[in-house]
């Protein structure tokens, strides 16, 4: 019995270590003005070189662990955002980048806007700014990875309702 517990413990640690050291991100724009998207692209340039931390930009939601969302969610983008989120395999995490993704920002109350990202999918980390600097985005990813290392981060698998 003891041995099984130790084995499970070691296994969990290895999994957490691998997860923390290899976050593959997917970038999704749900109606942003492109300001945050340009900052995210700047984050991926050689100057900031996020490959140091194992961050890799993936094109397919099926490969990604972290969904980086920018902008308020428009009525049209809502279904797509949900679909992309559903396509990602567990465990998955979401970072909301920019004021609009956090609160709706300048687009709050617009006739074509559902609201902020949190109203559609569960968000783990918020990065404020209009737009946030690349350093802030890297800090957001680092905070998410730090959160993963604590036991409480073993977030129960949530069923999102479309």
């Amino acid at each position: 019995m003891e041995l099984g517990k130790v084995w499970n413990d070691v296994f969990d640690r290895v999994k957490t270590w691998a997860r923390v050291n290899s976050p593959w991100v997917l970038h999704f724009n749900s109606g942003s003005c492109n300001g945050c998207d340009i900052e995210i692209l700047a984050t991926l340039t050689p100057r900031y070189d996020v490959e140091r931390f194992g961050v890799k930009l993936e094109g397919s939601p099926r490969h990604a662990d972290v969904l980086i969302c920018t902008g308020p969610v428009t009525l049209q983008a809502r279904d797509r955002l949900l679909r992309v989120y559903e396509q990602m395999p567990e465990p998955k995490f979401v970072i909301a980048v920019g004021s609009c993704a956090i609160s709706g920002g300048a687009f709050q109350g617009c006739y074509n806007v559902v609201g902020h990202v949190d109203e559609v999918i569960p968000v783990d980390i918020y990065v404020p700014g209009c737009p946030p600097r690349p350093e802030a985005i890297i800090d957001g990813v680092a905070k998410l990875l730090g959160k993963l290392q604590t036991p409480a981060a073993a977030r129960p698998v949530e069923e999102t309702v479309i």
Partner: protein
Amino acid sequence: MDVLRTLFTLMIFPGGLFILFNGMVYEWADRKLVARLQNRVGPRWFQPLADMLKLLAKEEVVPASVDARLFIGLPVIALAGVLTAALYLPIAGLPPAYSFPGDLIVTVYMLSLLTLCTGIAGANTNNRFSLVGATRTLTQLFSYEAPFMLAMLGPAVAAGSWQIDEVMGYAAEHPVILMQPVGFVIALIGLMGKLEMRPFDAPEAETEIVAGAMTEYSGRGLALFYLGRYVELIAGLTLVAAFYLGGIQNPLDYFVKTLALLLVLVGLQTLMTRLRIDQTVGLWWRYGTLLVLLQWFVTLLLRS
């Protein structure tokens, strides 16, 4: 005792664990060197290991539209194919684990199993990006496979044997790279096509078709395909080094020669941009195949 020895050969050295770790280390070297050439710091040394463990621990989504047996089985077949190919190669400078007359043909075809499986895996899904990726993968397979095969057979013809061990013995005594320079270049570039490295990465062009044939794969299946690619990198480098760089006699020889070849591949990757798929096909059939056939002809004439 015999069973134990076979198991050791298949699971630990040179078949299983050793070549997987070796592949991950070479993949890291590849990524790190590319990063350094681009003025970046690059990934940490355990990056491929962390990637693979993470993928293996992730959920594997089987899409509704696929044939589930094929979807789950193809990555296993792909990895098994390249691991089998490695058994016939002088991995780490030791003599091949198994050897028989004609194992060169088996090895080269086992190495293309990975690409074939990738193509079928892409065609298996209903995803449009996967389908485009699969078409490109198979088109590319048919364009580089013939010249690569002919380039591999060049030293074999000169040595008068189809056995990797004997060709290596011949290569150790003759400067094959000077006798068949065209074959060397074609083999090296064919290897880049096999591994879908930068000038030939149209099949998985992430800026146009998401991830090519791999688009629908997640978790375990993706990890197995990546591992297959890493092993193929090792096997291909070993094969080219053994045939063209004067054979592989000891572990030091192995690491120096394969890493030197890897450095050349990294340089080419950094220098070139992606070719369109029609450009790839044109390059191979208009120039590659013809040049290597010409060299074959010359080799045959000189031998007789």
